[in-house]
């Protein structure tokens, strides 16, 4: 297994380079333009000048190589400088990956947004998984019971009603209809500058997280619980379950040790695919609740054709995808020792 992991990690580097090039190619081909959202009062000659100053006149491969140099060499050196004070080469005037839109280093922007994304999107994922697993297990164990039917109904509604609707519905209920002095009132706008230092500010943080987390958790739980249920059902009718029961094992042991472990493979896949999405942010939900996390940064970047920003974010996202899929592959081996990669 260790051997396999190492071999895969080696293989990861060229894969990621290829992915980064293809992403760059797509961003470059896309017909939107960094000056597209400027007011029409800015004349075309000035727009051309702006494009030149952003370096867009250079050939595509040259800009890609420049990004590679900035991202793979300058940014790590800069981190060393920031964290340990080590200065290698010309650390004052080193060009970092710079966003077109804000003209500031992209990595700083990402770091600034990480906390709210992790709080809101990460929390909603944790909540979603924690709800989904037991619901999936129980619905499968008691297939077609009222609990199962009810769970199916909720899950399907959670999945088929998009977050742009549930989010607005929540705001109308909790921020508009409920009076502001009520303890159930929740703010419709997320305050990213809030610092949790004491109990009241912690309560405030919880309140402003409540709605986005609920909306996203419902969606995630609906998704994961369906796969959990289906996989449990497959395994519950297997011969080894009958054997285990015949041996006189306790029902709890049969269910939670034997069946659950064998049913985890698709669920692990789904969760591993979902974790990078957490870092990708939830574009619509962040937009509705003004969380302004990574998802909002990405969509602003895309709308304004901010190539360095989108390229960097997407690439980091790709790194996470590759890593978590590797983690999933390793977990398969642990869950089912028969799986061999070597």
């Amino acid at each position: 297994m260790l051997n396999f992991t190492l071999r895969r990690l080696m293989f990861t580097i060229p894969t990621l380079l290829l992915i980064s090039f293809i992403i760059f190619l797509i961003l470059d081909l896309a017909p939107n333009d960094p000056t597209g959202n400027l007011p029409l009062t800015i004349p075309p000659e000035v727009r051309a000048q702006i494009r030149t100053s952003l370096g867009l006149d250079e050939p595509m491969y040259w800009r890609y190589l420049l990004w590679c140099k900035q991202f793979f060499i300058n940014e790590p050196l800069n981190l060393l400088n920031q964290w340990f004070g080590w200065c290698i080469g010309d650390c004052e005037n080193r060009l970092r990956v710079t966003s077109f839109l804000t003209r500031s280093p992209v990595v700083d922007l990402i770091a600034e947004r990480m906390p709210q994304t992790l709080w809101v999107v990460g929390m909603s994922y944790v909540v979603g998984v924690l709800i989904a697993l037991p619901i999936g297990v129980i619905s499968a164990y008691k297939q077609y019971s009222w609990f199962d039917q009810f769970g199916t109904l909720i899950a399907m509604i959670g999945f088929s009603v998009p977050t742009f609707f549930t989010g607005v519905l929540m705001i109308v209920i909790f921020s508009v209809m409920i009076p502001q002095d009520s303890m159930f009132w929740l703010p419709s706008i997320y305050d990213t500058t809030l610092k949790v230092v004491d109990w009241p500010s912690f309560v405030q943080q919880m309140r402003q997280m409540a709605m986005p987390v609920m909306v996203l958790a419902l969606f995630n739980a609906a998704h994961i619980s369906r796969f959990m249920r289906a996989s449990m059902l497959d395994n519950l009718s297997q011969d080894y379950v009958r054997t285990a029961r015949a041996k006189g094992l306790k029902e709890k042991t049969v269910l939670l040790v034997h069946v659950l472990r064998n049913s985890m493979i698709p669920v692990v896949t789904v969760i591993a695919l979902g974790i990078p999405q957490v870092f990708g942010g939830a574009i619509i939900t962040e937009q509705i609740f003004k969380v302004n996390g990574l998802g909002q940064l990405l969509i602003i970047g895309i709308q304004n054709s901010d190539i360095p920003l989108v390229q960097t974010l997407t690439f980091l996202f790709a790194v996470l995808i590759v890593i978590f899929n590797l983690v999933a592959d390793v977990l398969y081996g642990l869950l089912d020792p028969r799986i061999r990669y070597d």
Partner: protein
Amino acid sequence: MTDTDTLEDDRKYRSLWGDVWSQFRSHRGAMLGSVVFITILLAVAIGPYLWGLDPNFADVRHRNQGMSWGHPFGTDQLGHDMLAQVLQGGRISIAVGLTAMALSLFLGTFIGVLAGYFKRLDGLLMRGTDLFLALPILPLLLVIIMLFRDTLRSMFGPETGIFILIVFIIGITSWMQTARIVRGDVLALKEREFILAANSIGTPSRRVILRHIMPNILSPIMVSATLGIATAIITESALSFLGLGFPSDFPTWGRLLYDGTQRITQAPTRVIWPGLAISLTVLSVNFIGDGLRDALDPRIRGR
């Protein structure tokens, strides 16, 4: 689910598909789901002819109306009849949902099975999957639309051209999860005794996959199918919202829901009907999927 029925039938001649059908029929949820789904299909297929009102006729004097006999679902801000819009929108939404789901399911299963079963293909196919997972979807859409919209439009006309484009886009950007899940299951399955047995008597790979692997990975595929329809319908609405979908005079459920969301407090019916239509479709497909899965599983069928 009743054991006695099947026991009595024991002696009659039974075909595989007959068995499947009788099991499917005895699944209450699946039958109910089928009835609802067929009703929805009929409604959107025949409904627009029966209801007669043109979904694109703006009767401006009667805009923003609530429910009435003339307009059972009310009218929107331009005076379009909502019932006609929901019926017409259902055609596109269901067509997009089903075809995009089928495409992504086919791609996902095909790639997942190949990668899981043939070790040599695994690395390549899964890195390809990683690539597709990492692609930034919006810029990709812009590129695809820039490259192909005009060609498709001149070849198939505005409606069909956009339809092909959207189905293709949704299909090609949503197969990866199915592929990863199927591959994971196949990896575990192919080490099981019955596959080893099949291999050892010289069964060709194609037959092993179709006969032995496929039936055993049906349930995650069914779940993917259900979720896939919902995803496709909603993705389509996100596309129209971004100006990348159907022209604005082709209503779809997703877009009706999106437009209604703005007026959620003024006219709740505007979100209820399209929302209900999407949910009912997804729910009924889900139950049909459940029933099919049970019916195709010989262990459950025997019970």
